[in-house]
């Protein structure tokens, strides 16, 4: 395998906080050395002049829905991995809510094989926590983990039965496995499509009160206390749930959480005139909650930012608001939308990139998120400042359901490498 020498880069290592000019040499799919004015190695070597652009560990996106197997017309593993590569993501982790549900060893192996065939962003998968996402019977967590499932979750459904959740945490702890919850109490959220409040009232839409999330997080934290199981709350969006997790962390519980760009980039007003592209689950919240999400990211209560990529075709979105599907695509907007926090002066670049790479990798026990010699050369080269406007028609994703269409952003992916191989390069 040939070597690549990146010269004149702004090297950012979220693990160490390093942010300085330098060079980086990739050999045999791994980072060979990092430093200033590295000597050019002998043999065939590609020299890349980064011209001051940022070179950082590739993003690790810990919450992605792909639709293969089952609904490949919305997003296949190939289209998803291609879109992710264009977004600077080098590893993504799929939710198990495909058809069939990923609750069997053979399906975990299928995803791994498809990822190898596609050879772009590495596609890993979670497995279902309960069989068929039915919320009752535990899956074969030990065997599924051995086959490569990174953690266990019922995807976009909450594990709502407290006894099942307790046993799931307890059983998972037997094998030191992670449980990921969609934290929403279904009896409080099932009738609604947007945040409960003035706007929902004016629109005449049933609302979901933020306590639906807070109650579930607080319940789960008590069960974590009892079982000692490792727990991750996905896409937290409310002041109350973030505060609960902050306290749990101070208490030393094995708890982590993530959020997604729409929850710090938008609030409930984006629903505007029944825009179904702004219908998410959990829903976009109030401005107060949006600020709480940013505070959570700033003080480290929220560990990670994930795209929460949820591809839906027009048939699922061009419907009356209450009937429309929830979720937006996010693979190709994860980096520029997250960089708003940097440009707004809310987070430093190393800290922001830590939430996008090192922290999710650490939670999932993956090697990514470091610029250390010997680690896999999963890298993203990006211009942090370049202004552009999001255009959904340029998305490599098969579906275009994004409320961010037309939004001016800064930060542009130039090149993405997985194990030293270029999987995306911006042309021109």
């Amino acid at each position, binding site marked *: 395998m040939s070597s690549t020498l990146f010269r004149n880069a702004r090297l950012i290592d979220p693990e160490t906080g390093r942010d300085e000019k330098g060079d980086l040499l990739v050999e045999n799919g791994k980072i060979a050395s990092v430093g200033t004015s590295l000597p050019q190695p002998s043999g065939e070597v590609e020299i890349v002049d980064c011209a001051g652009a940022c070179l950082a560990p590739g993003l690790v996106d810990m919450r992605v829905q792909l639709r293969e197997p089952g609904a490949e017309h919305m997003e296949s593993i190939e289209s998803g991995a291609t879109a992710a590569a264009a977004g600077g993501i080098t590893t993504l982790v799929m939710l198990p809510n495909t058809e069939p549900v990923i609750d069997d060893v053979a399906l975990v192996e299928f995803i791994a094989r498809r990822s190898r065939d596609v050879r772009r962003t590495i596609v890993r998968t979670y497995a279902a926590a*309960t*069989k068929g996402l039915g919320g*009752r*019977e*535990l*899956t*074969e*967590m*030990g*065997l599924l983990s051995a086959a490569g499932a990174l953690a266990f979750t019922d995807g976009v459904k909450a594990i709502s039965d407290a006894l*099942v959740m307790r*046993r799931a945490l*307890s*059983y998972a*702890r*037997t*094998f030191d496995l992670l449980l990921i919850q969609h934290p929403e109490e279904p009896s409080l959220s099932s009738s609604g499509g947007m945040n409960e409040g003035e706007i929902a009232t004016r629109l005449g839409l049933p609302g979901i009160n933020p306590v639906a999330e807070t109650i579930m997080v607080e319940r789960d934290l008590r069960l974590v206390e009892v*079982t000692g199981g490792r727990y991750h709350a996905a896409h937290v969006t409310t002041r109350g749930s973030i505060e609960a997790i902050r306290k749990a962390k101070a208490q030393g519980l094995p708890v982590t959480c993530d959020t997604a760009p729409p929850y710090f980039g938008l609030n409930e007003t984006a629903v505007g005139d029944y825009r179904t592209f702004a219908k998410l689950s959990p829903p976009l919240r109030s401005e107060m909650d949006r600020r709480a999400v940013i505070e959570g990211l700033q003080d480290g209560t929220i560990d990670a930012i994930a795209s929460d990529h949820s591809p839906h075709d027009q048939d699922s979105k061009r419907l009356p608001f209450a009937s429309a599907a929830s979720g937006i695509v996010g693979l190709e907007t994860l980096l520029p939308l997250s960089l708003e926090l940097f440009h707004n002066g809310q987070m430093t670049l190393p800290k922001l990139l830590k939430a996008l790479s090192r922290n999710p990798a650490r939670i999932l026990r993956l090697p990514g998120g470091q610029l250390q010699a010997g680690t896999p050369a999963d890298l993203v080269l990006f211009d942090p400042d370049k202004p552009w406007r999001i255009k959904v028609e340029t998305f490599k994703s098969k579906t275009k359901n994004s409320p961010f269409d037309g939004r001016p952003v800064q930060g542009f992916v130039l090149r993405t490498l997985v194990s030293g191989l270029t999987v995306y390069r911006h042309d021109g």
Partner: protein
Amino acid sequence: MTSAEQISFPHRHLLGIEGLKSDEITLLLDRAEGYVDQNRQADKKRSLLRGRTIINLFFENSTRTRTSFELAGKRLGGDVINMSVAASSIKKGETLIDTAMTLTAMHPDVLIVRHPESGAVRLLAEKVDCAVINAGDGSHEHPTQAILDALTIRRRKGKLAGLEVAICGDVLHSRVARSNIALLNTMGARVRVVAPRTLLPAEIGRLGVEVFHNMADGLKGADIVMMLRLQTERMHGSFVPSIREYFHFFGLDYAKLAAAKPDAMVMHPGPMNRGIEIDTVLADDIDRSMIRQQVEMGVAVRMACLDVLTRDLGNGPPIQ
């Protein structure tokens, strides 16, 4: 049974191992040894319990334990009656006591009781005026099983003290595990439990056991590996996800047994789920498995229990 033997068993009932002292357990084991020999003879019958009435009162289905008690009573010359009370036909609490009052009016000498609810046998014992043997109450105790397990081990290993015993599987629902933990601790053995966390009760470590969640660590250096039965209704999702996964991680086969001592022996209280908690070839391997001996010891131990309890009732000939 030599005439010089002194019996000192100060309990009216045998409700559990908890509360028995080591010399009392030793007495039962020594007594049972004699009955092992008796049971291997052509004439197995003695007249020790002649004229005594023993009622097997089973509120839960059982063939093995009931038969074992029945044989024990008959070989000692007693009259044994079997009463099976289907769980669905009784209302709990009040009716249990009604049953006790009815039976006690018939003047039995020993009641042998199995009940699906923990504590039910004790409740019944408080209401009758004969000796009561607990043949298993809920997830609480099954004392004669622990004593027969101890006799099996002692005959094989020559001792109980100092042995490393691993109890593996569904400890949460197991009365056998609780009785064995109590007995083995009392007798100076060291006990570990090995199970997925969903099959272990809270604070099990406080019962004096070391807790493991994988067989490789839990079986390391063990002298005895006791497997527990996994009830069918617990195999499909609520406590463990599947039979396949359970056997893969917690089922005993030769590979997992290799972590134990080379002369480690395997036990199971029965009935076995072959291929779920124990490999079928291993279960039948006479060099490694003591499962058949356990059944044999069961009759002798139950004879010993009937023996000491009826003498202590004071209406039998004292042992000189």
